[in-house]
């Protein structure tokens, strides 16, 4: 056998090193390991040897082939890696170049506040009730124990509409009509909150809007007490504002509740902030809805949604809520 493995390997190593592309290394591989390579030629000559010598020569050939293969593979890997690196380098991007922005839309601040309030009350076992924004005097006043002569009517600053008798149809001045509609249509027990738009003859300024949003709660069940009202308010306040916030009830007056209260929440500085009104549903209101006050008792509470949003983000002008400037809408 006239093959010198050492020479062959040295020759192959030199050829592999000279190859600088994957194509070239492929050619080198063919040259040394292909059918016409020296190794193949040497293999063909093995048959002429006696068995002992053939075995030893065959083994040597196989070893040489393996070493050649390893040598060429190693070079290929180096070249592959370099080629990949060059390709990737060519694809380099500056990720801070932002030509296209994905734009998400934004829920209105009032919607976000309302959804969150609804979620807290749903978690406390309430359903969400809704009603019309234009109401009759029955739903807005009379059924709520505010007869036609009552001085409290004046305090609602009601916006009336040109339908029917004068002052018989109006934009609801509170969400309380939904209480009446719910009680008229549903047997107790009732656990609802009623969010929605309400209206007053307030000229729009930094702190007032003629249309704003309130949420109102109503519970009618057997044996519901004022203690339940105070506890419910407290549970809500802690769920919505945080466990460290306290609540308190102060006597107040609403024609549709008795006893009536304002409820306050504590602020970080220890002072109290008036949040809304509440009370035990007046027996006359229950009777007006066909519910027997000797069997059922209830409580109700209500407060402004917009005001919560204004407080939370310290808006200096509530009119932003209706201007619909996208620079405002997209902040939340």
């Amino acid at each position, binding site marked *: 056998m006239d093959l010198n493995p050492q020479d062959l390997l040295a020759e192959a190593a030199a050829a592999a090193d000279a190859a600088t592309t994957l194509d070239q290394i492929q050619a080198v591989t063919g040259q040394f390991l292909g059918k016409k390579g020296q190794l193949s030629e040497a293999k063909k000559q093995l048959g002429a040897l006696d068995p002992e010598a053939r075995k030893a020569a065959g083994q040597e050939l196989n070893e040489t082939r393996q070493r050649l293969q390893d040598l060429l593979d190693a070079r290929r890997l180096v070249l592959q890696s370099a080629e990949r690196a060059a390709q990737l380098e060519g694809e380099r991007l500056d990720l801070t170049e932002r030509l296209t922005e994905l734009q998400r839309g934004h829920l209105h601040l009032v919607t976000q506040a309302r959804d969150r309030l609804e979620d807290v009350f749903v978690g406390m*076992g309430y359903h969400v009730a809704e009603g019309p924004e234009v109401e009759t005097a029955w739903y807005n006043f009379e059924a709520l124990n505010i007869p036609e002569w009552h001085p409290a009517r004046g305090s609602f600053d009601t916006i*009336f509409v040109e339908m029917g008798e004068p*002052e018989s*149809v109006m934009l609801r001045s509170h969400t309380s009509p939904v209480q009446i509609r719910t009680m008229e249509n549903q047997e107790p027990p009732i656990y609802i909150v009623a969010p929605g738009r309400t209206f007053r003859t307030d000229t729009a300024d930094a702190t007032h809007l003629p249309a704003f949003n309130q949420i109102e709660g109503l519970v009618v069940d057997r044996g519901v007490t004022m203690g*339940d009202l105070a506890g419910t308010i407290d549970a809500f306040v802690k769920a919505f504002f945080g466990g460290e916030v306290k609540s308190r009830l102060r006597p107040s*007056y609403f024609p549709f509740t*008795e006893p009536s209260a304002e409820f306050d929440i504590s602020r970080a500085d220890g002072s109290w902030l008036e949040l809304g009104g509440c009370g035990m549903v007046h027996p006359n209101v229950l009777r007006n809805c066909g519910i027997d006050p000797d069997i059922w*008792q209830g409580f109700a509470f209500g407060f402004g949604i917009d005001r919560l949003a204004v407080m939370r983000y310290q808006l200096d002008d509530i009119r932003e809520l209706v201007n619909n*400037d996208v620079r405002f809408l*997209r902040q939340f």
Partner: protein
Amino acid sequence: MKVLLSWLREFAPDIDGDPVELGETLSALGLAVEEMDILGEGLGDIVVARVLDLNPHPDADRIQLVSVDAGDGEALQVCCGAFNMAVGDLIPFAPIGTTMPNGMEIARRQMRGEWSNGMCCSADEIGLGADSDGIMILNQLIGDGAAADAPLGAPIVDVLGLEGDVLWDLEVNANRPDALSVAGVARDLAAALGVDFSFPEYPALAAGTALASVEIVDPTLCGRFLAVVLRNVTVGSSPAWLVQRLEALGQRSINNVVDISNYVMLELGQPNHTYDLNLVPDGRLRVRRAAEGETITTLDDVDRTLVATDGVIANADDVAIGIAGVMGGASTEISEATTDVLLEMAWWDPPSISRTVKRLQLRSEASSRYQRGADWGDNMDRALRRFVQLLGEMGAVADPGVIDERGTTPDRTPMTVCSAKVNGLLGTDLSAEDMAGHLRAIGFEATVDGDDLLVTVPTWRWDTATETDIAEEVARMYGYANIVRTVPRGEQAGGLTEYQADRRRVREVLCGLGYDEAQPLPFLAPGDLERCGLPDDGIVLTNPLDAEESVLRTSLLPGQLKAIAYNQSHRNGRIELFEIGHVYLPSADDQELPDEREYLAIALAGSEAPAAVAALHALSTALALPNLQLREGAQPGLHPTRSASVVIAGRERGVVGEVDPAVAGAYGVEGRVAWLQIDLGEVLSGPHGKRSYDRVSKFPSSDIDLAFSVPDTVTAASVEGSIRKAGGALLVRAELFDVYRGPGVADDARSLAYRMRFQAPDRTLTDDEVAAVRQAIIDQVQSKNQATLR
């Protein structure tokens, strides 16, 4: 209602404590403190000074040079802009270095070349009244005698007796007529503090036969009418202490008769009225309802026409000389010539007064007390005696004989209150005796009979008439804060309705598409709808604040266009808005209320109609709307050749397309606006959301592209319908990927290119199968749509 601590103590001398804590106690009683002012606070440096000399400023007309002695015997020069003092007057003086209540620091300074060494103060400047017109003249206020004793340089808080006095401004609720008086507040506060409360004794009036007379014609109008004649009246100014108290409570001094009238009302809660007796023929009064159309000139010199529900006080000739409980008449008004006064203390039916006040829009301190129900009991006699006492101090003398006529007063039969029911309402565990104690502390009569109480409501609590009312009083006195907090034991799962949940999903989908939620006010200006090409049938507000906000919207379009115009005018980019809100459509004549609906709108500035259609389809997918179709045709306010009605499950539910350029222009909107408005209420109440599972095929699919030349008169929807019909179950997808107009296509047609995918759930389709369905589609499209394969 404002109250002074010193005045409260005239009824309950033992009221004492930290002003803030007393304020908290008042709030806890339901008398919320809106403002608290510690009188004399920060006035420690203000001293009494005497005016020694007054000289004109050599170089200014509006200020003068005042020389004062502030106690050290030296003459200090002060520049002063007021001219109401005289040499010898005592005035409040702020020496150099004083910090005024408003934070201003008094320093030595020059005014037009003259030095000023301090400041002479007005009542306003030191928080002792509203008067800012002139310097406070102390000798006029406290009397020359007292002033003579006042040492110069002494703090004025000492001289005026302000030390420790507190002014609270309380919010008094409509059910607390009693708390619209100093005495009433004192009663509550004394009860809460557990200290004694009593009325001072005012001198009794002499019995006799009164010269005047009162006839109550309508007893339902007037429950009680007390009157007395005062002679030897000299109308003039009031003593300083009285003026000071009235001013502290926010009342300006007019003259002694008016001032005492106000004082008695504020102190005891009893409104009253004075007539010049000599202008009331025979001193005879008749109390009756007005005749419809009867007229009267009221004290404010306004001629007013009355209606049959109003109450009047008429004279012997039956001519109305006052509107009962609301305003007196001009014809019997007290003047400087008045010497004899007929004094009225009455109790009027609250609903009657409320109706008149509302109709005439005449609110006053007096009528607001009558509206809530004044006291018809002993307090009326007390107030009469108090008035006579006060005017008596100024020389007036009461004629013997008090007229006391009675009409119908509220029923005050004792009522039975069940303590278990009160506890059941409040969630408390109070004994009947505890409850009785709380009630007695504020003047209720209460006796205990087992578990029941027999309660008589005092005459000063007109609004209190039921067991629940009593429960509120018990709770108030027990303290709301002491009620143990629980939560209702009812076990219910809460939740949103399907409608509410779907509405949230709609909002989220639209936000995901990049649209911002806008919420304009639902009011429109007259003509807004017309400018939108919509019927001008919006419901009109009776009492709008602004003509620009006087119509209720019937469409979300005007509000959205205004929002777009607003944003464009502020050069805001990417104005893509949506709104979910109510519209108020005119309803049938037999309906009490408008046809109110919840609409959804999408307004995309700078986009053409297809953008809105794409949004509609995204919504349709999200809600699984069944059988969504567009019915082409001009829609009001929309681009006539780029709009369609939205048909869902065969019902028209809205419109989609592009806003008519003329309409957009009328609202100042630049460029195109893609528009969608649907009746969300109807859509979400109708069939939707039904989804079924289609097994995903594991077999290969084949794609085919076909382009047809289709006349412009034929819709793509029609072509697509033909494709789907012929494609049958094997067609799993068909989408329009190109629309081409130009060479190779007829002028009145366009090329529509569709990409279709065919697949079977159970096998690999053969070439023959695909070819067959392809041919079926071509045949169907060509035969039904005047189309030709390209």
